[in-house]
């Protein structure tokens, strides 16, 4: 049995698998299947300063090898999270990562300040949500935007700060470098790629928001490429996500340069995917004669 422990921005995770924000709620529903300590960490549903009702339905559309969503950050607000969700989550024996999203830089700063006084392990700043009209991805698609919001939040954030990057950019390496230079302790990528489906008979987009975020195996090769490019530009840890569905995908993403992984959409296909991925990864490490999962990180041999 190889050592699965990884350390991200000073936070030790029992294994490299983190539940991706927006796919796992605040954990309650998946605790029916297995102890949440099965996971190295949980990135909670994205929270905003005030409660948000989210987008009108339909919010979901299936796509070849994936899905679109436009939930629109429906959440009970940061105070509700701290009071009602965090105490229970804290007892589950897994790292708790608070995912924050805002309309303005002030929103992000206020949430980072509030959460810094709690016992969350890390804050993941979502500047890459494609499904809200204000804020979200507008901060995440230019180096100047990423740099200024990261630097602003850094002043209020006393927790390790992970910045979640959008793939809807021209040069992911530049964006990653801007986050690092402005004080990020880690980066996670990729968020969803903006997509659209249309019902050819009604001529209506299937999703009420017209467009949504594409996730699932369809985006996996894009995610591998971006993690590879970003990891070459930064020294801070890179958390890789985007379509990981099998242990082979997990190994591939680590080789591309990820130090830890997030899994999301595959949970909808198979809620037990984390158990299967960890089991497979463990056997692969033994087969490869590796003592620690960290030995895979960045191990790709580019031509």
């Amino acid at each position, binding site marked *: 049995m190889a050592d699965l422990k990884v350390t991200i921005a000073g936070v030790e995770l029992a294994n490299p698998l983190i539940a991706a924000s927006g796919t*796992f709620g605040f954990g309650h529903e998946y605790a029916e299947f297995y102890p949440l300590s099965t996971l190295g960490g949980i990135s909670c549903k994205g929270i905003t300063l005030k409660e948000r009702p989210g987008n009108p*339905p339909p919010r979901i559309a299936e796509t070849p090898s994936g899905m679109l969503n436009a939930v629109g950050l429906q959440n009970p607000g940061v105070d509700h999270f701290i009071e009602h969700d965090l105490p229970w989550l804290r007892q589950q024996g897994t790292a708790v990562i608070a995912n924050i999203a805002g309309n303005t830089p002030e929103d992000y700063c206020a949430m980072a300040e509030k959460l810094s006084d709690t016992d969350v392990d890390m804050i993941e700043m979502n500047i890459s949500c494609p499904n809200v009209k204000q804020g979200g991805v507008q901060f995440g698609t230019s180096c100047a935007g990423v740099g200024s919001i990261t630097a602003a939040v850094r002043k209020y954030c006393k927790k390790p700060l992970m910045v979640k990057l959008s793939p809807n950019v021209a040069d992911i390496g530049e964006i990653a470098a801007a986050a690092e230079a402005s004080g990020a302790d880690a980066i996670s990528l990729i968020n969803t790629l903006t997509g659209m489906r249309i019902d050819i008979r009604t001529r209506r987009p299937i999703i009420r928001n017209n467009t949504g975020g594409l996730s699932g195996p369809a985006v996996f090769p894009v995610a591998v490429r971006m993690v590879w490019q970003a990891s070459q530009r930064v020294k801070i840890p890179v958390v890789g996500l985007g379509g990981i569905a099998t242990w082979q995908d997990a190994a591939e993403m680590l080789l591309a340069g990820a130090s830890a992984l997030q899994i999301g959409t595959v949970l909808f*296909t198979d809620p037990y995917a984390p158990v299967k991925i960890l089991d497979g990864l463990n056997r692969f490490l033994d087969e490869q004669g590796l003592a620690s999962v960290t030995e895979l990180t960045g191990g790709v041999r580019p031509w």
Partner: protein
Amino acid sequence: MKQYDVRQCRVMQFDQLTADIYSAWVDAGELARLAKPGQFAQIYVPGKTLRRPISICDAEGDALRFVFQIRGEGTAILANTRAGDSWDVLAPLGHGFSLGDTGRKVCFVGGGIGVPPLVAAAKVFGANATVVTGFRNRDAVILQDDFAKNGNRVVLATDDGSAGFHGLVTECLPEDCEAIFACGPTPMLRALTAEAEKRGVECQVSLEQRMACGIGACLGCAVKLKTEDGGWRHGHVCKDGPVFDARIVAFD
């Protein structure tokens, strides 16, 4: 004890009921004994990212029955099932019907593929349940013998009059029902909600929505619900429903 889980279920019997509607009895073990009328399951479809939410039609011992219609690529794949195959089933999910006093006279109303989730609930009421179901035409009629076998009073309507009453289910409601349980197209549910309000009787409606996780984590299957203060909020079909008190559903 888990409330729901994933299980590999052997398909014991698989039948085609109409041109595009199929019936499967699967061995779901303890999941079948956990199931309550009106709950649903998420069925894995090989090669598809999302499971298909399908209502539980009936439960007997360790067996669950699913009756589903081909609505797209996923259900078309499920329609190729043969007895002896295995289904990967996540169940039982959501809140079913709150049946209350089964000594009351009640009415079940179903339209088209909204009819299957009523079978197990109506069975509990036996002769106290009148089951009014509507279909496009006689070729689309399903499950009439099942309701009759369970002792329910059965009323059939078709849009074209090719079987039973020529018209809408809402024109066939019995006078003496103390509660209405319904599943079907939104216009039907809206009309029944208004009728129940006029009569001053309880009404529960089973809804559907495009869904991802099926357990309340992803918030994909939103439904607009009225709040007590005159406002509204987004609930979720998979966890808060699929069955809702009709008075709180905002049909807009």
